[in-house]
Protein backbone atom coordinates (compact mmCIF):
# COMPACT_ATOMS: atom_id res chain seq x y z
CA UNK A 1 0.00 0.00 0.00
CA UNK A 2 1.07 3.55 -0.67
CA UNK A 3 -0.37 6.95 -0.02
CA UNK A 4 -1.43 8.46 -3.30
CA UNK A 5 -1.70 12.20 -3.22
CA UNK A 6 -2.96 14.02 -6.30
CA UNK A 7 -4.43 17.30 -7.42
CA UNK A 8 -7.52 16.20 -9.37
CA UNK A 9 -9.53 18.84 -11.23
CA UNK A 10 -8.09 21.48 -8.93
CA UNK A 11 -8.95 19.61 -5.74
CA UNK A 12 -6.28 18.06 -3.52
CA UNK A 13 -7.08 14.41 -2.86
CA UNK A 14 -5.22 11.60 -1.16
CA UNK A 15 -5.90 8.04 -0.28
CA UNK A 16 -4.24 4.72 0.35
CA UNK A 17 -4.07 2.36 -2.60
CA UNK A 18 -2.33 -0.87 -3.42
CA UNK A 19 0.77 -0.18 -5.51
CA UNK A 20 -0.71 -2.22 -8.35
CA UNK A 21 -3.82 0.00 -8.56
CA UNK A 22 -4.08 1.59 -11.98
CA UNK A 23 -4.69 5.31 -12.14
CA UNK A 24 -7.98 4.77 -13.97
CA UNK A 25 -9.28 2.54 -11.16
CA UNK A 26 -8.15 5.01 -8.52
CA UNK A 27 -10.05 7.79 -10.30
CA UNK A 28 -13.18 5.72 -10.84
CA UNK A 29 -13.37 3.65 -7.69
CA UNK A 30 -11.63 5.72 -5.00
CA UNK A 31 -12.68 9.14 -6.24
CA UNK A 32 -15.95 8.23 -7.96
CA UNK A 33 -14.91 10.01 -11.16
CA UNK A 34 -16.50 7.55 -13.55
CA UNK A 35 -16.29 9.82 -16.58
CA UNK A 36 -12.94 8.24 -17.39
CA UNK A 37 -13.68 4.90 -19.03
CA UNK A 38 -11.95 1.56 -19.27
CA UNK A 39 -12.35 0.39 -22.84
CA UNK A 40 -9.78 -2.06 -24.13
CA UNK A 41 -7.60 -2.07 -21.00
CA UNK A 42 -4.60 -2.64 -23.30
CA UNK A 43 -3.58 1.00 -24.00
CA UNK A 44 -4.97 0.96 -27.52
CA UNK A 45 -8.43 2.53 -27.41
CA UNK A 46 -7.87 5.76 -25.47
CA UNK A 47 -11.20 5.75 -23.58
CA UNK A 48 -9.16 6.23 -20.38
CA UNK A 49 -7.21 9.32 -21.49
CA UNK A 50 -6.73 11.95 -18.78
CA UNK A 51 -4.25 14.80 -18.46
CA UNK A 52 -1.36 14.19 -16.07
CA UNK A 53 0.72 17.34 -15.53
CA UNK A 54 -0.78 18.77 -18.70
CA UNK A 55 -0.15 15.75 -20.92
CA UNK A 56 -2.82 13.40 -22.29
CA UNK A 57 -1.93 9.88 -21.17
CA UNK A 58 -3.69 6.55 -20.92
CA UNK A 59 -4.68 6.09 -17.30
CA UNK A 60 -5.09 2.32 -17.75
CA UNK A 61 -1.35 2.05 -18.36
CA UNK A 62 -0.14 4.00 -15.37
CA UNK A 63 -0.16 3.12 -11.70
CA UNK A 64 -1.92 5.54 -9.38
CA UNK A 65 1.23 5.65 -7.26
CA UNK A 66 3.30 6.61 -10.34
CA UNK A 67 1.10 9.69 -10.66
CA UNK A 68 1.36 10.62 -6.97
CA UNK A 69 2.35 14.28 -6.68
CA UNK A 70 0.94 15.12 -10.11
CA UNK A 71 -1.92 17.33 -11.24
CA UNK A 72 -4.67 15.52 -13.06
CA UNK A 73 -7.55 16.76 -15.17
CA UNK A 74 -10.35 14.36 -16.07
CA UNK A 75 -13.40 14.95 -18.24
CA UNK A 76 -15.26 16.10 -15.11
CA UNK A 77 -12.78 18.95 -14.66
CA UNK A 78 -12.96 20.41 -18.14
CA UNK A 79 -16.17 22.46 -18.06
CA UNK A 80 -16.37 25.74 -16.21
CA UNK A 81 -19.50 25.17 -14.13
CA UNK A 82 -22.43 24.98 -16.53
CA UNK A 83 -20.32 26.34 -19.42
CA UNK A 84 -18.99 23.53 -21.53
CA UNK A 85 -15.33 23.58 -22.53
CA UNK A 86 -15.00 24.61 -26.22
CA UNK A 87 -14.08 21.02 -27.17
CA UNK A 88 -17.14 19.64 -25.35
CA UNK A 89 -19.34 22.29 -26.98
CA UNK A 90 -17.95 21.42 -30.41
CA UNK A 91 -18.58 17.69 -29.92
CA UNK A 92 -22.18 18.55 -29.01
CA UNK A 93 -22.64 21.00 -31.89
CA UNK A 94 -21.11 18.72 -34.54
CA UNK A 95 -22.58 15.50 -33.14
CA UNK A 96 -19.11 14.03 -32.56
CA UNK A 97 -20.50 11.00 -30.73
CA UNK A 98 -23.06 8.27 -30.90
CA UNK A 99 -22.91 5.87 -27.94
CA UNK A 100 -20.56 8.21 -26.08
CA UNK A 101 -18.28 5.58 -24.58
CA UNK A 102 -15.11 6.86 -26.26
CA UNK A 103 -16.09 10.52 -25.90
CA UNK A 104 -14.34 11.43 -22.61
CA UNK A 105 -11.05 10.04 -23.94
CA UNK A 106 -11.61 11.66 -27.34
CA UNK A 107 -12.23 15.05 -25.74
CA UNK A 108 -9.21 14.81 -23.43
CA UNK A 109 -6.98 13.73 -26.34
CA UNK A 110 -8.45 16.46 -28.56
CA UNK A 111 -7.87 19.17 -25.97
CA UNK A 112 -4.24 18.09 -25.66
CA UNK A 113 -3.89 17.99 -29.45
CA UNK A 114 -5.25 21.54 -29.81
CA UNK A 115 -2.87 22.74 -27.07
CA UNK A 116 0.04 21.13 -28.89
CA UNK A 117 -0.85 22.91 -32.14
CA UNK A 118 -1.46 26.57 -31.31
CA UNK A 119 -0.74 27.30 -34.99
CA UNK A 120 -4.00 25.51 -35.87
CA UNK A 121 -4.94 22.06 -37.12
CA UNK A 122 -5.82 20.52 -40.45
CA UNK A 123 -7.85 17.40 -41.09
CA UNK A 124 -4.84 15.19 -41.87
CA UNK A 125 -3.13 16.13 -38.60
CA UNK A 126 -6.28 15.53 -36.56
CA UNK A 127 -6.80 12.10 -38.12
CA UNK A 128 -3.13 11.15 -37.65
CA UNK A 129 -2.99 12.29 -34.03
CA UNK A 130 -6.24 10.54 -33.14
CA UNK A 131 -4.37 7.31 -33.74
CA UNK A 132 -4.56 6.35 -30.08
CA UNK A 133 -8.32 6.82 -29.73
CA UNK A 134 -10.76 4.33 -31.13
CA UNK A 135 -14.45 5.01 -31.83
CA UNK A 136 -16.60 2.11 -33.05
CA UNK A 137 -19.72 4.16 -33.90
CA UNK A 138 -19.05 7.35 -35.76
CA UNK A 139 -16.48 6.60 -38.41
CA UNK A 140 -14.62 9.57 -36.90
CA UNK A 141 -16.01 12.05 -39.39
CA UNK A 142 -17.90 14.27 -36.95
CA UNK A 143 -15.23 13.86 -34.29
CA UNK A 144 -12.68 15.31 -36.71
CA UNK A 145 -15.10 18.10 -37.61
CA UNK A 146 -15.66 18.91 -33.93
CA UNK A 147 -11.94 19.04 -33.16
CA UNK A 148 -11.26 21.34 -36.13
CA UNK A 149 -14.10 23.64 -35.04
CA UNK A 150 -12.91 23.67 -31.41
CA UNK A 151 -9.37 24.44 -32.52
CA UNK A 152 -10.67 27.53 -34.34
CA UNK A 153 -12.81 28.65 -31.39
CA UNK A 154 -9.91 28.24 -28.97
CA UNK A 155 -7.50 30.13 -31.26
CA UNK A 156 -10.00 33.01 -31.34
CA UNK A 157 -10.39 32.84 -27.56
CA UNK A 158 -6.60 32.96 -27.13
CA UNK A 159 -6.41 36.03 -29.41
CA UNK A 160 -9.22 37.66 -27.45
CA UNK A 161 -7.35 37.05 -24.22
CA UNK A 162 -4.11 38.39 -25.72
CA UNK A 163 -5.99 41.54 -26.76
CA UNK A 164 -7.44 41.93 -23.28
CA UNK A 165 -3.97 41.50 -21.79
CA UNK A 166 -2.59 44.13 -24.17
Amino acid at each position, binding site marked *: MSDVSLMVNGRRVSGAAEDRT*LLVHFLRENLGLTGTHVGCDT*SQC*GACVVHVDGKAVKSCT*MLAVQASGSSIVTIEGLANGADLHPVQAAFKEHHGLQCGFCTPGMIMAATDMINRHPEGLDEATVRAELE*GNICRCTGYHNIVKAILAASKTMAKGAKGKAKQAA
Partner: protein
Amino acid sequence: MYSVNYHRAASVADAAKLVKSGDAKLLSGGMTLIPAMKTRLAAPSDLVDLSRIKEMQGVKVSGKTVTIGAATTHFDVSNDEKLKKACPAIAHLASLIGDPAVRYKGTIGGSIANNDPAADYPAALLALGATIVTNKREISADKFFKGLFETALKDGEIITAVSFTAPAKAAYEKFRNPASRYAIVGVFVAKGKDGVSVAVTGAGDDGVFRAKEIEAALAKNFDAASLAGVKVPAKNLMSDIHASADYRANLIAVMAKRAVAAANA
Protein backbone atom coordinates in the same frame (compact mmCIF):
# COMPACT_ATOMS: atom_id res chain seq x y z
CA MET B 1 -1.70 -7.69 -12.10
CA TYR B 2 0.03 -9.40 -9.20
CA SER B 3 0.87 -7.42 -6.10
CA VAL B 4 3.98 -5.26 -6.39
CA ASN B 5 5.97 -2.77 -4.29
CA TYR B 6 6.61 0.56 -5.94
CA HIS B 7 9.70 2.70 -5.28
CA ARG B 8 10.41 6.09 -6.79
CA ALA B 9 14.13 6.64 -7.36
CA ALA B 10 15.52 10.12 -6.78
CA SER B 11 18.84 9.51 -8.52
CA VAL B 12 20.66 6.85 -10.52
CA ALA B 13 22.59 5.84 -7.38
CA ASP B 14 19.31 5.55 -5.47
CA ALA B 15 17.81 3.41 -8.26
CA ALA B 16 20.88 1.14 -8.28
CA LYS B 17 20.34 0.45 -4.55
CA LEU B 18 16.55 0.00 -4.84
CA VAL B 19 16.77 -2.42 -7.76
CA LYS B 20 18.58 -4.92 -5.52
CA SER B 21 15.39 -5.50 -3.51
CA GLY B 22 13.63 -8.78 -4.26
CA ASP B 23 12.92 -9.56 -7.88
CA ALA B 24 12.79 -5.90 -8.85
CA LYS B 25 12.35 -4.44 -12.30
CA LEU B 26 13.16 -0.96 -13.52
CA LEU B 27 10.13 1.06 -14.60
CA SER B 28 10.53 3.95 -17.02
CA GLY B 29 7.53 5.03 -19.12
CA GLY B 30 5.84 1.70 -18.42
CA MET B 31 4.33 1.48 -21.90
CA THR B 32 5.45 -2.15 -22.22
CA LEU B 33 6.08 -3.21 -18.64
CA ILE B 34 2.69 -2.18 -17.22
CA PRO B 35 0.72 -4.01 -19.97
CA ALA B 36 3.03 -7.03 -19.46
CA MET B 37 2.27 -6.96 -15.72
CA LYS B 38 -1.47 -6.60 -16.36
CA THR B 39 -1.43 -9.76 -18.47
CA ARG B 40 0.86 -11.41 -15.89
CA LEU B 41 3.60 -11.94 -18.46
CA ALA B 42 5.79 -10.04 -16.01
CA ALA B 43 5.46 -10.31 -12.25
CA PRO B 44 8.23 -8.35 -10.53
CA SER B 45 8.12 -8.13 -6.74
CA ASP B 46 9.24 -4.51 -6.86
CA LEU B 47 9.24 -1.65 -9.33
CA VAL B 48 11.89 1.08 -9.32
CA ASP B 49 10.56 4.14 -11.10
CA LEU B 50 13.26 5.97 -13.07
CA SER B 51 10.98 8.45 -14.77
CA ARG B 52 11.52 11.33 -12.33
CA ILE B 53 15.33 11.18 -12.24
CA LYS B 54 16.44 14.57 -13.53
CA GLU B 55 19.98 13.49 -14.52
CA MET B 56 18.48 10.93 -16.94
CA GLN B 57 16.35 13.41 -18.84
CA GLY B 58 16.86 15.62 -21.86
CA VAL B 59 18.81 15.90 -25.09
CA LYS B 60 22.27 17.46 -25.32
CA VAL B 61 23.90 18.39 -28.60
CA SER B 62 27.52 19.47 -28.49
CA GLY B 63 29.04 19.91 -31.93
CA LYS B 64 28.32 16.59 -33.66
CA THR B 65 27.90 14.64 -30.42
CA VAL B 66 24.32 13.89 -29.42
CA THR B 67 23.48 12.55 -25.96
CA ILE B 68 19.94 11.55 -25.05
CA GLY B 69 19.10 10.82 -21.42
CA ALA B 70 17.57 7.37 -21.02
CA ALA B 71 14.41 8.71 -19.37
CA THR B 72 13.73 11.16 -22.20
CA THR B 73 10.28 10.51 -23.64
CA HIS B 74 9.57 9.90 -27.31
CA PHE B 75 7.60 13.15 -27.28
CA ASP B 76 10.61 15.10 -26.03
CA VAL B 77 12.96 13.42 -28.52
CA SER B 78 10.60 14.14 -31.41
CA ASN B 79 10.23 17.81 -30.45
CA ASP B 80 13.77 18.74 -29.47
CA GLU B 81 14.81 21.66 -31.67
CA LYS B 82 18.59 21.00 -31.35
CA LEU B 83 18.11 17.36 -32.21
CA LYS B 84 15.88 18.19 -35.19
CA LYS B 85 18.85 20.12 -36.60
CA ALA B 86 21.61 17.67 -35.63
CA CYS B 87 19.85 14.40 -36.49
CA PRO B 88 16.31 14.94 -37.75
CA ALA B 89 15.99 11.23 -38.61
CA ILE B 90 15.92 10.11 -34.97
CA ALA B 91 13.47 12.88 -34.01
CA HIS B 92 11.25 11.74 -36.88
CA LEU B 93 11.56 8.12 -35.77
CA ALA B 94 10.42 9.07 -32.25
CA SER B 95 7.35 10.79 -33.72
CA LEU B 96 6.30 7.48 -35.32
CA ILE B 97 6.30 5.39 -32.13
CA GLY B 98 2.90 4.36 -30.74
CA ASP B 99 0.42 7.22 -30.47
CA PRO B 100 0.60 10.68 -28.84
CA ALA B 101 -0.38 9.39 -25.37
CA VAL B 102 2.22 6.64 -25.56
CA ARG B 103 4.89 9.08 -26.74
CA TYR B 104 4.33 11.26 -23.65
CA LYS B 105 5.28 8.33 -21.41
CA GLY B 106 7.53 5.90 -23.30
CA THR B 107 11.28 6.52 -23.11
CA ILE B 108 14.31 5.72 -25.25
CA GLY B 109 16.00 3.84 -22.39
CA GLY B 110 12.92 1.73 -21.76
CA SER B 111 12.56 0.91 -25.44
CA ILE B 112 16.13 -0.29 -25.91
CA ALA B 113 16.26 -2.16 -22.58
CA ASN B 114 13.15 -4.07 -23.67
CA ASN B 115 14.57 -4.63 -27.20
CA ASP B 116 11.29 -5.65 -28.76
CA PRO B 117 12.12 -7.14 -32.19
CA ALA B 118 9.72 -4.61 -33.79
CA ALA B 119 10.80 -1.55 -31.77
CA ASP B 120 12.08 1.46 -33.72
CA TYR B 121 14.96 2.80 -31.64
CA PRO B 122 17.19 -0.31 -31.87
CA ALA B 123 17.43 0.20 -35.66
CA ALA B 124 18.49 3.82 -35.20
CA LEU B 125 21.08 3.09 -32.53
CA LEU B 126 22.60 0.18 -34.45
CA ALA B 127 22.81 2.17 -37.71
CA LEU B 128 24.21 5.23 -35.93
CA GLY B 129 26.86 3.15 -34.13
CA ALA B 130 25.58 4.59 -30.87
CA THR B 131 27.01 4.01 -27.44
CA ILE B 132 24.70 2.89 -24.65
CA VAL B 133 25.82 4.39 -21.35
CA THR B 134 24.90 2.56 -18.15
CA ASN B 135 25.67 3.21 -14.50
CA LYS B 136 28.53 0.69 -14.85
CA ARG B 137 30.01 1.02 -18.36
CA GLU B 138 29.61 2.00 -21.98
CA ILE B 139 28.40 -0.57 -24.50
CA SER B 140 28.46 -0.18 -28.28
CA ALA B 141 25.10 -0.77 -29.94
CA ASP B 142 26.43 -3.75 -31.96
CA LYS B 143 27.34 -5.49 -28.67
CA PHE B 144 24.20 -4.33 -26.84
CA PHE B 145 21.34 -5.86 -28.86
CA LYS B 146 21.57 -9.62 -28.35
CA GLY B 147 18.37 -11.06 -29.80
CA LEU B 148 14.64 -11.10 -29.10
CA PHE B 149 14.10 -9.05 -25.93
CA GLU B 150 17.75 -9.76 -25.04
CA THR B 151 20.45 -7.19 -24.35
CA ALA B 152 23.93 -7.09 -22.88
CA LEU B 153 22.54 -5.52 -19.68
CA LYS B 154 23.41 -7.35 -16.47
CA ASP B 155 20.93 -7.71 -13.60
CA GLY B 156 20.29 -4.37 -12.01
CA GLU B 157 22.33 -2.44 -14.57
CA ILE B 158 20.69 0.87 -15.50
CA ILE B 159 20.88 2.60 -18.88
CA THR B 160 21.47 6.28 -18.15
CA ALA B 161 21.92 7.69 -21.68
CA VAL B 162 22.68 6.93 -25.29
CA SER B 163 25.12 8.92 -27.36
CA PHE B 164 26.16 9.04 -30.99
CA THR B 165 27.84 11.20 -33.58
CA ALA B 166 25.32 12.97 -35.79
CA PRO B 167 25.61 11.47 -39.28
CA ALA B 168 25.90 13.56 -42.45
CA LYS B 169 22.69 11.97 -43.73
CA ALA B 170 20.14 9.62 -42.21
CA ALA B 171 16.51 8.60 -42.47
CA TYR B 172 14.09 6.03 -41.10
CA GLU B 173 11.22 4.45 -42.99
CA LYS B 174 8.80 1.97 -41.52
CA PHE B 175 6.11 -0.22 -42.95
CA ARG B 176 3.57 -0.62 -40.19
CA ASN B 177 1.27 -3.41 -39.32
CA PRO B 178 -2.07 -1.70 -39.99
CA ALA B 179 -3.56 -2.96 -36.70
CA SER B 180 -0.77 -2.87 -34.12
CA ARG B 181 1.14 -0.07 -35.88
CA TYR B 182 4.39 -1.82 -34.98
CA ALA B 183 7.00 -2.14 -37.72
CA ILE B 184 6.63 -5.14 -40.03
CA VAL B 185 9.83 -3.74 -41.47
CA GLY B 186 11.63 -0.57 -40.37
CA VAL B 187 14.89 0.52 -42.01
CA PHE B 188 17.26 3.15 -40.66
CA VAL B 189 20.00 4.31 -43.05
CA ALA B 190 22.91 6.47 -41.94
CA LYS B 191 25.82 7.88 -43.91
CA GLY B 192 28.62 9.08 -41.69
CA LYS B 193 32.38 9.34 -41.70
CA ASP B 194 32.71 5.56 -41.27
CA GLY B 195 30.58 4.86 -44.33
CA VAL B 196 27.01 3.72 -44.77
CA SER B 197 25.16 1.58 -42.30
CA VAL B 198 21.68 0.18 -42.61
CA ALA B 199 19.81 -1.43 -39.72
CA VAL B 200 16.54 -3.31 -39.93
CA THR B 201 13.90 -3.80 -37.26
CA GLY B 202 10.65 -5.78 -37.28
CA ALA B 203 11.99 -8.45 -39.59
CA GLY B 204 14.88 -10.36 -38.04
CA ASP B 205 14.37 -13.76 -36.43
CA ASP B 206 16.93 -12.63 -33.90
CA GLY B 207 15.90 -8.99 -33.57
CA VAL B 208 17.54 -5.92 -35.09
CA PHE B 209 20.35 -6.52 -37.61
CA ARG B 210 22.45 -4.77 -40.26
CA ALA B 211 21.59 -5.40 -43.90
CA LYS B 212 25.03 -6.06 -45.41
CA GLU B 213 23.80 -6.45 -48.99
CA ILE B 214 22.19 -3.03 -48.88
CA GLU B 215 25.18 -1.44 -47.17
CA ALA B 216 27.52 -2.84 -49.86
CA ALA B 217 25.37 -1.44 -52.67
CA LEU B 218 25.08 1.97 -51.00
CA ALA B 219 28.79 2.17 -50.18
CA LYS B 220 29.50 2.64 -53.90
CA ASN B 221 26.85 5.27 -54.39
CA PHE B 222 24.45 6.54 -51.72
CA ASP B 223 21.48 6.70 -54.02
CA ALA B 224 18.18 4.82 -54.11
CA ALA B 225 19.01 3.78 -57.70
CA SER B 226 21.99 1.77 -56.37
CA LEU B 227 19.51 -0.59 -54.76
CA ALA B 228 17.82 -1.61 -58.03
CA GLY B 229 18.02 -5.40 -58.21
CA VAL B 230 19.59 -5.80 -54.74
CA LYS B 231 18.15 -8.90 -53.10
CA VAL B 232 18.00 -9.37 -49.35
CA PRO B 233 18.07 -13.06 -48.40
CA ALA B 234 14.92 -14.29 -46.62
CA LYS B 235 16.99 -16.62 -44.44
CA ASN B 236 16.78 -15.65 -40.75
CA LEU B 237 13.78 -13.39 -41.31
CA MET B 238 10.53 -13.75 -39.39
CA SER B 239 7.54 -15.47 -40.93
CA ASP B 240 4.24 -14.97 -39.14
CA ILE B 241 0.56 -14.28 -39.81
CA HIS B 242 1.43 -10.69 -40.74
CA ALA B 243 4.08 -11.33 -43.37
CA SER B 244 6.20 -14.16 -44.76
CA ALA B 245 9.99 -14.05 -44.69
CA ASP B 246 10.07 -13.48 -48.48
CA TYR B 247 7.64 -10.59 -48.18
CA ARG B 248 9.73 -9.03 -45.43
CA ALA B 249 12.94 -9.53 -47.47
CA ASN B 250 11.40 -7.60 -50.35
CA LEU B 251 10.07 -4.92 -48.00
CA ILE B 252 13.54 -4.34 -46.56
CA ALA B 253 14.82 -3.34 -50.00
CA VAL B 254 11.75 -1.17 -50.63
CA MET B 255 11.99 0.61 -47.27
CA ALA B 256 15.75 1.05 -47.72
CA LYS B 257 15.15 2.76 -51.09
CA ARG B 258 12.60 5.09 -49.53
CA ALA B 259 14.91 5.83 -46.61
CA VAL B 260 17.85 6.66 -48.88
CA ALA B 261 15.63 8.92 -50.97
CA ALA B 262 14.44 10.66 -47.79
CA ALA B 263 18.02 11.00 -46.47
CA ASN B 264 19.12 12.61 -49.75
CA ALA B 265 16.10 14.91 -49.96
